[in-house]
C-alpha cells in the first residue's frame, strides 16, 4: 500500500464539501438521541438513515452513517446512566455502575467519564483500523475462493455462537438469511430462483429494505405492544461533567486495557459491541484494584464498558472494509449502504477507491470527535430524553421506514419487502431467534455461494479443499471449534455450560 496516501487521499473528499461535515454533525446528533432512547439501537439508527443517503455522494453518506454509528454506541450510556435502561444493548454493563453514580448525584460525572472513555476507545480503534485494514486487504488479495468461503463461515459461526439463547437458533437464523439470498437471478446461467414469476424478485431481495424491516419495523411493532413505556423526566442534577485530569489519569490503565479488548472483539467477524462490553467489564472486575466495588458505582466500571464498546466500532470496520465480511450487525448494514453506491467492500476497494477508504477513516475519527463535543457540551439536555413521547415515536418510525424502503429505488414492492421482513423479524424475536445472523447470512450469501462453487470447480468437487489449504484450513478449524465448544466443554467438565442468556439481542 502506498503509505501516506491512505490518510491524505480522503482529505479532499471530506473537507472539500461542507455537506459532508454538516451531515456528520446531523448523524452524530441523531445517533446520540437514538442511542440514548431505550428500544432504539445503533443498528436501527444506521438502518433507518441508510435510505436518506441514496441520492448523496458516498462520502456524504458515510459521514451521516458513521457519525450516527459512533454516536449511537456512545449514546446508549446516557439511557443507562439516567434511566437505568441501557439505550442500546451494548450499554448493559454501563447500567451497573452508571446508575448507582446517578443515585449518588454524580450523573454528570458518570456521563463525562462515559463520554471520554468512549472517545478514547473509539480513537484507539481508528488507529488500529488504519494500521491493520490495509495490511489485511493486501493479504486478502492473495486469498482464493476457499479462504473467502471459510471467512464467511467463520462469521456465521461466531454470530450464531454469541447470539443470546440457543446456538441452534442462531444457525437457523443465519441459514434463513443464506436461503433468502438465493432469491433472484443466480450467476451461472442467469436462472431466476424463487421468483414466482415476479419481475421485482428477479434482481433478488433488496438488502436495505430487509434490514430496515428486521431492525426498524419489527422493533417498532414490539414497541407498539407497550404504550405505557413513557418515562418521566429525569430530575437528575448533573453536576460537573468534564472529568478532571487526575480522574482521567487514574482511569487510563482501565481505558487502555479495555480499548484493546474492544478492538479485538470488534475485529472478530460478527462479534459486536455488546459482547465486547460484557467481556471487558468482567475482565476489569478481576484485574482492577477496585474490582470488588464494581456494581456500586465506580468510574472504572463505566470506563471499562464504554471504552470497550466504542473501541468495537473501529474494530468491526476492519473485516468489513478489508475483507467485505461484516464485524457486527451495524457493519452489515453499512455494507448494504456502500453497495447502494456501487462500492463493494473488500480488498479491491483499497485498490480502486483508496480515496473513499481514506475518507471513511477520517470520518470515523471525526465521528468520535463529534460525539465527544456533543456529549460534553450538550449533557445538560440529556435528562430531557425521558420526555420523548413513544406513542408518536412509533408512528413516526413507521412513516420513516416505509418511505425509506420506497426511496431506495422508487419501488412500492420494496415497501412490501419491508413489511414482510418486519413481520418475520417480529415473530423470530418472539420465538427468541436472533435476527442479526439472518442479516449476516443475507449479506454473505453471494460470497458463500460463489466461493463455494468456485472452490469446488477448482478442486474437482473435493470438499476437503477447504481444509487442505493452510489459511482456509485454519479458519475452518476455528469455526468448527467455536461451533463445537459448548459441547466440548460439556464433554470435559461433565456438565452443561450455560451460554450467557437473557442478554438482549444486539439488533
Amino acid at each position, binding site marked *: 500500500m502506498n503509505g501516506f496516501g491512505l490518510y491524505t487521499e480522503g482529505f479532499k473528499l471530506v473537507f472539500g464539501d461542507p455537506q459532508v461535515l454538516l451531515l456528520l454533525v446531523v448523524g452524530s446528533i441523531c445517533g446520540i438521541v437514538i442511542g440514548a432512547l431505550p428500544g432504539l439501537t445503533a443498528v436501527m439508527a444506521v438502518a433507518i438513515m441508510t435510505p436518506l443517503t441514496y441520492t*448523496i455522494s458516498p462520502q456524504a453518506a458515510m459521514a451521516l452513517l458513521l457519525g450516527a454509528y459512533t454516536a449511537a454506541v456512545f449514546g446508549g450510556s446516557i439511557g443507562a446512566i439516567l434511566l437505568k435502561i441501557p439505550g442500546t444493548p451494548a450499554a448493559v454493563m454501563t447500567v451497573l455502575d452508571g446508575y448507582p453514580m446517578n443515585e449518588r448525584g454524580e450523573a454528570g460525572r458518570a456521563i463525562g467519564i462515559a463520554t471520554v472513555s468512549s472517545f478514547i476507545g473509539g480513537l484507539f480503534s481508528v488507529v488500529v483500523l488504519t494500521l491493520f485494514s490495509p495490511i489485511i486487504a493486501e493479504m486478502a488479495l492473495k486469498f482464493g475462493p476457499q479462504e473467502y468461503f471459510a471467512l464467511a463461515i467463520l462469521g456465521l459461526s461466531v454470530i450464531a455462537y454469541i447470539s443470546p439463547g440457543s446456538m441452534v437458533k442462531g*444457525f437457523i437464523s443465519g441459514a434463513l438469511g443464506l436461503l433468502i439470498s438465493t432469491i433472484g437471478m443466480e450467476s451461472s446461467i442467469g436462472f431466476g430462483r424463487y421468483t414466482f414469476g415476479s419481475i421485482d424478485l428477479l434482481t433478488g431481495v433488496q438488502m436495505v429494505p430487509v434490514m430496515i424491516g428486521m431492525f426498524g419495523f419489527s422493533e417498532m411493532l414490539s414497541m407498539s405492544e407497550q404504550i405505557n413505556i413513557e418515562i418521566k423526566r429525569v430530575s437528575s442534577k448533573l453536576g460537573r461533567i468534564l472529568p478532571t485530569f487526575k480522574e482521567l489519569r487514574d482511569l487510563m490503565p482501565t481505558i487502555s486495557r479495555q480499548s484493546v479488548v474492544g478492538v479485538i472483539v470488534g475485529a472478530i467477524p460478527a462479534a459486536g459491541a455488546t459482547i465486547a462490553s460484557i467481556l471487558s467489564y468482567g475482565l476489569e472486575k478481576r484485574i482492577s484494584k477496585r474490582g470488588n466495588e464494581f456494581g456500586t458505582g465506580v468510574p472504572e466500571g463505566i470506563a471499562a464498558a464504554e471504552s470497550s464498546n466504542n473501541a468495537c466500532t473501529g474494530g468491526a470496520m476492519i473485516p468489513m472494509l478489508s475483507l467485505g465480511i461484516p464485524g457486527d450487525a451495524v457493519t452489515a448494514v453499512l455494507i448494504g449502504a456502500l453497495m447502494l453506491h456501487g462500492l463493494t467492500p473488500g480488498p479491491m476497494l483499497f485498490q480502486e477507491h483508496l480515496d473513499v477508504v481514506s475518507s471513511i477513516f477520517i470520518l470515523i475519527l471525526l465521528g468520535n470527535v463529534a460525539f465527544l463535543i456533543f456529549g460534553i457540551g450538550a449533557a445538560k439536555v440529556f435528562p430531557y430524553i425521558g420526555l420523548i413521547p413513544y406513542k*408518536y415515536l412509533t408512528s413516526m418510525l413507521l412513516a420513516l421506514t416505509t418511505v425509506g424502503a420506497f*426511496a431506495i429505488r422508487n419501488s412500492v414492492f420494496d415497501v412490501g419487502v419491508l*413489511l414482510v421482513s418486519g413481520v418475520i423479524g417480529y415473530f423470530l424475536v418472539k420465538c427468541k431467534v436472533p435476527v442479526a445472523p439472518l442479516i449476516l447470512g443475507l449479506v454473505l450469501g453471494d460470497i458463500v455461494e460463489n466461493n463455494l462453487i468456485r472452490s*469446488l470447480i477448482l478442486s474437482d468437487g473435493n470438499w476437503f479443499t477447504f481444509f487442505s489449504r493452510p489459511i482456509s484450513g485454519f479458519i475452518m478449524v476455528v469455526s468448527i471449534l467455536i461451533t463445537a465448544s459448548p459441547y466440548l466443554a460439556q464433554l470435559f467438565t461433565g456438565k452443561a455450560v450455560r451460554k450467557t442468556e437473557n442478554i438482549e439481542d444486539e439488533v
Partner: protein
Amino acid sequence: MKKSDLVLGLVIILLCGLAFGATLSWPASSSVVGARGLDPSFFPRVVIIMLLLLALLLIWGSRKSTSEEKGFTLPSIRPFLVVLTTAGYIAFVKQAGFLITNALMLFVVTVIMGVKSSRALVFSVIGTLVVYVLFRKILMVPLPMGNW
C-alpha cells in the same frame, strides 16, 4: 417442552419442503459446471438440508427441555393493526399518492397507540409534511403523487 420451539421447527421443516420442492423443476447448467452437479439448485439445496437438520435439532431440544415455557403470547393486537395499516398503505400509495396515504397511516397508527384523535390529526399532518420535505425537497426522492 417448549411449544414455541416445536412450532418454529415444524414451520421451518414445512418451509424447507416447499423450498426444496421448488428446486426440482429448475434447469441444470448446461456447461461443464453442471456436469459436476453445481446447478442453480446446488447451493439452495445445501442450505435447505442444513436448515432441515437444524430444525430437527431444535425440535429434539424442545422435547428434552423440561422448562415450562409459555411460548409466545400476543400481549396486544396493536402490532397486528399496525401491519394491516401498512398493508393498506402499500395497496393505495400509488393511486392515492404519498401525502394522503402517509397522513392516513400516521393518523390511524397514532390513534391505535392511544392518542386522542384531534391530536393525532394534527400530528399526522405535521409528520407527513416533515417526511415530505425531508425526502422530496431535501433528498429529491420522487414520491408517488397519485392519479388525481
